[in-house]
């Protein structure tokens, strides 16, 4: 049964890395700026999931804090870029 879990972890890691590659392609070829910001959002979420898979595999608790930091700062970056696209400034009046 542990071989099943190892295969499932391998498959999930492969899926997240492939999703990161797809988001990266959209990040580079995206025709408008909001497409690129959306691709960045997908990219950091999938990177966070890849890091969580690393944490599940190694059995260490250190990776969850890093994943939390990636989630917080990725949300801040997406929010700042979206606000900048909405009006020409990040923090408006």
């Amino acid at each position, binding site marked *: *049964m*542990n071989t*099943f*879990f*190892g*295969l*499932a*972890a391998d*498959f*999930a*890691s*492969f*899926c*997240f890395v*492939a*999703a*990161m590659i*797809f*988001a990266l*392609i*959209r990040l580079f070829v995206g025709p*408008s*700026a*909001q*497409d690129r*910001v*959306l*691709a960045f*959002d*997908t990219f950091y*979420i*999938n990177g*966070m*999931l890849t890091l*969580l*898979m690393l*944490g*599940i*595999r*190694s*059995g260490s*608790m250190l990776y*969850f804090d890093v*994943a*939390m930091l990636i*989630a*917080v700062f990725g*949300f801040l970056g*997406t*929010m700042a870029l*979206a*606000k900048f*696209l*909405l009006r020409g400034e990040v923090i408006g009046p």
Partner: protein
Amino acid sequence: MNELSLPLWAALPAGILLVCGGLLALIGSLGLLRLRNFFERAHPPTMGTTLGTGCVLFASMLVSSALLHRPVFHEVLITFFVLITAPVSAMTLMRAAVARNRPRPERLNVER
């Protein structure tokens, strides 16, 4: 090496959840790559963001609870944060897209 001591009641549902989360994230990102305009592309990654993250973090809770022989709940923090913030950023981004697609020559004349 730690996976060798994983019991059956944790390994089976955690494996199934990991496969489901990986497939959800992959399909969502493929939809982001393949759909035609922005308002169609905004929908698929939210599936991988919310359900995929939920699946992976629940599997992580199962595995760490089985390894440490006590219930571990601090992955709920990441799930809660991602579930709260994903609609906020998606809606702000869609509002930005609507505002940028709108033709506005008259607004420039009014404000200047």
